[in-house]
């Protein structure tokens, strides 16, 4: 059984067709990287999977359960899927610890002690033990993003969606976040990662999907995609990336 299955996913914003029939299957413990130009639909795809954006047509199946059928409890689905955004979106009025414990307490009904113990364990594992009582405004971008990832992890998701999580960071802060994601991958977390960090994608992905014009134009193992892309559009995109010094 695959962890995630997308079939014929379509999504438009007004007359702008962002996704024009995306098919994708992600196995458990697999790390899939989505690459493609800005506006190719990477973020929209992830937001659709988490049901933040309602889809126009197609099917989304998470862990064997179709989550796009009518009458589904979206909150129950979102519990199982962690998503991390480009802009962190931490809650600025809460301490780091509270950011992490809010959902386990409110959604999973865990006790405060239980939620805090788990939060401290996760924060400690990712080098944030001394930040638990800080407020997000005090943290660097890299720290904020790591907290955001921990916040998602605290829900024990079956699947993590990472939406260009390093794009808003200063270059020197990117590494610490990528390191955390590597650890997650090593721990067997199933992940779909939209990214502009090609070297990282090549290094971490089991499979790379190139999105173009609202469809997955080409996919395969990272070495194949990055060294011998078949599609001219993929070649073009990668050439531009290389020319921009991003790979």
């Amino acid at each position, binding site marked *: 059984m695959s962890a995630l299955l997308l079939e014929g996913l379509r999504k438009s914003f007004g007359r702008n067709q962002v996704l024009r029939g995306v098919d994708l299957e992600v196995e458990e413990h697999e790390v899939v990287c989505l690459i493609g130009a800005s506006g190719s639909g990477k973020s929209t795809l992830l937001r659709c999977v988490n049901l933040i954006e309602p889809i126009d047509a197609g099917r989304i199946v998470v862990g064997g359960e179709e989550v796009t059928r009518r009458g589904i409890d979206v909150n129950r689905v979102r519990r199982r899927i962690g998503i991390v955004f480009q802009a962190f979106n931490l809650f600025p009025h809460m301490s780091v610890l509270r950011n992490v414990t809010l959902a386990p307490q*409110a*959604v999973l009904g865990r006790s405060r002690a239980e939620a805090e113990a788990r939060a401290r364990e996760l924060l400690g594992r990712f080098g944030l033990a001394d930040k638990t009582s800080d407020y997000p405004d005090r943290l660097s971008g890299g720290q904020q993003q790591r907290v955001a990832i921990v916040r998602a992890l605290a829900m024990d998701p079956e699947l993590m969606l990472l939406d260009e999580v390093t794009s808003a960071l200063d270059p020197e802060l990117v590494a610490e976040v990528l390191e955390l994601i590597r650890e997650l991958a090593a721990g067997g977390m199933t992940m779909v990662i939209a990214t502009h960090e090609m070297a990282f994608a090549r290094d971490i992905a089991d499979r790379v999907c190139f999105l173009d014009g609202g469809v997955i134009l080409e996919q395969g193992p990272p070495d194949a995609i990055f060294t011998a892309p078949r599609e001219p559009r993929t070649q073009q995109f990668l050439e531009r990336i290389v020319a921009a010094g991003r790979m």
Partner: protein
Amino acid sequence: MASEGDRRAGPEVAARSSKVLGLGAGGPRGVAIAVASTVVFFALLVVAVTHAPGWPEVHRAFFSWAQFRTTLPEISRAFLLNVKIFCIAEALILVVALLLAVIRSLPGPVFFPLRALAIAYADFFRGVPTILVIVLLGFGAPGLGLKSVPTSTTFWGIVALVLVYTAYVSEVYRAGIESVHPSQEAAARSLGLTRWQATRYVVLPQAVRRVIPPLLNDFIGLQKDTALVSTLGAIEALNQAQIDVNASFNFTPYLAAALLFVAITIPLARFTDWLVLRDRRKRQAGGVR
């Protein structure tokens, strides 16, 4: 979407947050200059007023120390009624207005009737002069002669003030709710929180913090408007002062009443400043260790 730069507390923010009155920014020398210029300003003002041709007459009619001393205790006692009306009304307004604001921000066509009612309510009660609402309710409702309807003027005065001020305060809350970026709600929902949980834990706490200063503005207005309940005959500070003025043909009791109102609003204003400052410090400092 916020970039990193505007998320971190810059030194200019810290500088701004350290001054409530605008004093202290220039060091000891700045304070000295501020004190000197204030003294000179008020000295000039006092000289100008006391040398006006009508000053002796005004002094006798408005600034009679004897009158002040004899009427102040009574007016203070009556002022307790203002304070009581204010406290009860404010507590109700804070809750009802928040409810109304939340109703107004409910999305989707299903809630249209609720939203429409909330909008109609806010439009109506912001449009009608407060004193009319007080008079209509205060004289009209008890006039129905229904057994279950209270006849207390204070009761109807409070009801009228709550109706009017809820309309204003709900708009303040709504502005606060709309100022919280949608990505905050999206982040909360993506963690599996229900719409209500996202509102309660993420949107409202941020919204309310942001609107504390305008909320206080409305509450100062409310505090002053408790005097309007005097039109129903309740013996509150203004009515008591009026009685004293009529008995003595001296206006000093009005001044006494005015001072009592000011004596409450000023600490309230400083308290709000302190609240805002404390919240800002908390978010920028390292929190409790």
